[in-house]
């Protein structure tokens, strides 16, 4: 094992994902304002998605170009949300 491909510690990522999933399920039963729950849930979901993309999909170890490609759909989503917000009120 000398060619230490300083790769990510996959098991650590797994435990983080598992812990965050359990926390997410626990949070919805908490007796705190709905807004607070929503913020916590979205924060944890984005953290989990980022963990998967950075370590399992190796984005952290790739060229920046791939990260920009991966982030491009979010631009569309933000645009879409901004377009739709006026219709909601």
């Amino acid at each position, binding site marked *: 094992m000398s060619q230490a491909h300083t790769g990510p510690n996959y098991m650590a990522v*797994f435990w983080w994902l598992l812990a965050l999933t359990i926390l997410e399920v626990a949070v919805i039963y908490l007796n705190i304002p709905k807004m607070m729950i*929503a913020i916590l849930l979205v924060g944890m979901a984005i953290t989990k998605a980022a963990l998967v993309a950075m370590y399992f999909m190796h984005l952290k170890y790739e060229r920046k170009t791939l990260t920009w490609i991966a982030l491009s759909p979010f631009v569309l989503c933000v645009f879409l949300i901004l377009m739709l917000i006026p219709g909601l009120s």
Partner: protein
Amino acid sequence: MSQAAVMHPSAEPAESPLTPESWGKLGMWLFIAGDAMSFGTLIVCYGTFRGLSSSWPVPSAVLGINLTALMTFLLICSSVTMVQSLSAVQRGDVKGFTRFMGLTILSGAAFLGLQAYEWTHLINHTLPEAGFSFSTHLFAATFFVLTGFHGMHVTGGVIYNICVFFAVRRGTYGAGEVEISGLYWHFVDLVWILIFTFIYLL
């Protein structure tokens, strides 16, 4: 001649930021970005309908959270076995690859089985009884379109993984191809993480 062959890999990347070590990998990332836009649009539309509706159900009260938490756990596990199978094939360990890729395929198939069970239960009992069936409420339509679109992706991923499984065992595929199929599989896992939060928990 041999000099040129040695020079080649180090000279290539400087030419353009889009010139990757692997064209297949770049292709898969472009596909994933396009696919993510479809999922993003569906999720944003779900949120808009929910915001506009005065009678939207609380999803966690209508849908079973425990079963879907188990499905989330299954997909996360399958992602871990997927990276393990890639490490195995990089070491040249075909036996390890067989075990881990086999587990990945089984987890994917188990996920689909659970989803089929969940859908049957929702369509036949839970949703009609709660007054949110397909024909009466937009909730059912948006929910089934989103989870169905994802379920089709899992089905495709399982078939893809089965093909890769046999191609590696035959020796026609190597680490590069396994990494690319891994990208797709992790993406499907990533989308489920978002669906689990935005559709089931929020």
